[in-house]
Structures are given as C-alpha cells and as structure tokens.
C-alpha cells in the first residue's frame, strides 16, 4: 500500500527530536496502549496485520499522531475489521454487542512466555531452495500492491546485490490478510547510494534491506 509510513528517502521532517533521560513511556496511557496491543494480538494478530492496520490510517492522521497513538488506532481498526469491536463500543468504553470469545485471553504466565520466547518467523516447511545466490544482482519488482507489503518504495525498480540468505520466512503480504504464511527465502540485499538516489552521488554509502524472494527478479 502506498502511504506515508513508507517514508524512507524524505529529508524535510526537520531535526531529529532527542531527549535526555527519556522514560520508557511518556505517559501512563502509552504504557497501557503498548500492553494492550501486545496482549490482544492473541485475537487481533498476527503482527503483520497490526502493522498493516497502522499503514491504513489516513495520511494526515498518521502524520499528526505519535507512535502509540498510531498503535491505539491500530487496535481500533483491527478490532472493528475482525468483528470484536464497534465504533459505539469504542466511544462508550463498554460492551454493547456481546460476542463469545473462542478462548480466554492470555494470562500473565502466557504473556511472559511470549515475551521471553518470541514468535519465530522462520519455517522449516516453507519454500526452501533459494533461486538466488550470494553475489547475484537482483531488481526489486515494481508491483502495485494495495495490501500489506514490506518492499520499500525507495528500492522498488532498483538493482542490488544479494549479500546473505536468511532461510525461509513468513511472507507478510499473505500473513497480514489471512492468506496463509507463504514462507519463502528471505535475502539481505545491498543497494549502493548511487543506485538509490542518483548517479551524481559520490559518497560511499549503501543500504542493506531484507527482501522476500517474491519481491525480486534477476537483473
């Protein structure tokens, strides 16, 4: 989806706002949004759906929201999409239409297990046998995508070099939309600054980015 979340390459957002002695959360509501978001993924997830929910915010609202405000909007969007919440309930802060839940919410022990154990994105039964090798030149396909996609605009259509194979990873494009996992080879791809930004670039910079096999074609 083309939206402002895909912001790599803009230069005019101003100075980077830095704080000394920054707290983990700037307000109690940030702490609550963080915890609600992670805990509710048992019903609203996977994380790919959560990322896509934020990407679907209106461009102007996205730019006018802080990080955890966007997470809060994400919970609302997913909750409504999946039929758990309605606008009326969100405004009232209480249940109006009862819906039986498929299972109880994760308790503290389960949540601690999730936090400490993680959720691996690799799959042994995914597509193996990578079609590209380290050193291969690849072009990022230019494909119009209305749903979730993790190929940034600034690399689309550009040529890079495979630097590493990372095993078979769940494809977010499918996973965010309940289309299965479509696990497939994930590559680390190096792009020179000159390729990304212009032939007149002389500085010795490059970007490494992780791209799924379906995003790439031989170059």
């Amino acid at each position: 989806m083309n939206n402002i979340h895909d912001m790599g390459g803009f230069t005019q957002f101003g100075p980077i706002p830095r704080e000394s002695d920054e707290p983990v959360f700037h307000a109690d509501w940030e702490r609550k949004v963080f915890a609600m978001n992670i805990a509710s993924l048992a019903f609203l997830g996977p994380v790919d759906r959560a990322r896509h929910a934020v990407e679907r915010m209106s461009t102007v609202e996205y730019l006018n929201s802080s990080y955890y405000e966007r997470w809060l909007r994400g919970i609302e969007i997913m909750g409504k999409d999946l039929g758990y919440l309605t606008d009326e309930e969100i405004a009232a802060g209480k249940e109006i239409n009862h819906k039986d839940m498929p299972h109880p919410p994760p308790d503290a022990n389960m949540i601690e297990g999730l936090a400490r154990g993680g959720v691996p994105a690799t799959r042994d039964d995914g597509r193996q046998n990578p079609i590209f090798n380290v050193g291969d030149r690849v072009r990022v396909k230019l494909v119009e995508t209305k749903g979730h996609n993790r190929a940034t605009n600034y690399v689309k259509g550009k040529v890079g070099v495979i630097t590493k194979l990372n095993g078979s990873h769940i494809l977010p494009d499918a996973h965010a939309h309940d289309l299965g996992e479509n696990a497939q080879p994930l590559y680390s791809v190096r792009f020179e600054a000159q390729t990304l930004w212009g032939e007149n670039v002389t500085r010795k910079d490059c970007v490494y980015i992780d791209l799924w096999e379906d995003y790439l074609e031989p170059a």
Partner: protein
Amino acid sequence: MATHSHDKKNPYHESNRSDADNQALDDRVNKMEALLLEKGLVAKDALDKLADIYENDLGPMNGAKVVARAWVDPEYKKRLLEDATSAIAELGFGGLQGEHMVVVENTPEVHNVVVCTLCSCYPWPVLGLPPAWYKSFAYRSKVVIEPREVLAEFGTEIPDDVEVRVWDSSAEIRYLVLPERPAGTENLGEEELAALIERDAMIGVTKVAA
C-alpha cells in the same frame, strides 16, 4: 523533561503534547482498556506483566553485556557474528522482536547504523523499547538517504573513506551494531566495559567513548 529538540512546535512528538492532549488520550485509552477487559480480549494481569517486563527488565544494559563480552572474548565475538541469536541467548537474552538477530561490526573501514523506515522495528530483548527519536519521522525518513547528516546530528563524524552501511529492518531480522572498542580501555574488565556502552552506539548513531 530535558530535550535536545530544536523544534518545540513539532506536534507529533511525545514531549510536545499539551496536558489537555494527554488528558484526552488518557480518557480514550482508559475506555479502550475497559472495553478490551470486558470483552475478554485482554487480561489485567497480562497487561501488568507486559508493562513490568518492558519497563524494568529489558533495556540497553543487556546489549551492553553482549558487546562487552564480544570485546573481551574473541571466540564469543566469532559466534556472535556468525549466529547472533544463539550467541545472545548464551547470555540469557531473547524473545519477542529478537527471534532473528544479526550483529554487524563497526571497523575502521565500515560504520553501521540501523533503522526501520516502515514502522519502528527494534531489537527489544537487547535494547528494550526504542527511544522516541528512533521512531521519529525525521530519523526514519532521512537516515537511508543522508546517513552522514543524521550521524552528524548525533555528533558523529564519519570520514569520507569510511563506508556507511544503513540497515533497514524491513523483515523480522533485528540488527545490533557491535561498536569499535575505544582506545585506552585495554585494562578494563567486562563489567567496566559494559558501563561505557550506550544504547545509541548499538543503534550505530554514536561511537563508544572511553
């Protein structure tokens, strides 16, 4: 709260919210929390546990221990660069947003810096939750195209003959920078070294000072 920001009007930044804004958000979030609890989408003890873990247990002190170990133990460093997830697990760290770790090493020829341009992916088990600047639009947008200017904002000057590598965390791989060990620290032990290593150096926007 002290801030280095030069842009106090910047409305999307956390430290610039008015009390009224925070109050409105408080109300909205309290309603959402009450609703999710009533619906059975979340459990209160799970919410408290999450806040406790990410506020008190996880933070850059974990990553600093990894870096310090790599500085004093060449065999550990080798394992860390080959399979960071396993090497980091040796020190007891791992979990959500650290399932697939890669450590990239700064050298006299290469300087590494990490970003997530699309959201704000970050290696939680070794660095905790990201600082506001890492999540800012200014950082996310600019570091891929003008990394040297961004590093200069942090007071980090990179010579022209050093290659700057920007790592954009677009998948579930999370990156940690292994900074260069500063000169003059030859006699320091692992714990003393760890105390020198700050979060920003492990993101790659600063270097470790002795």
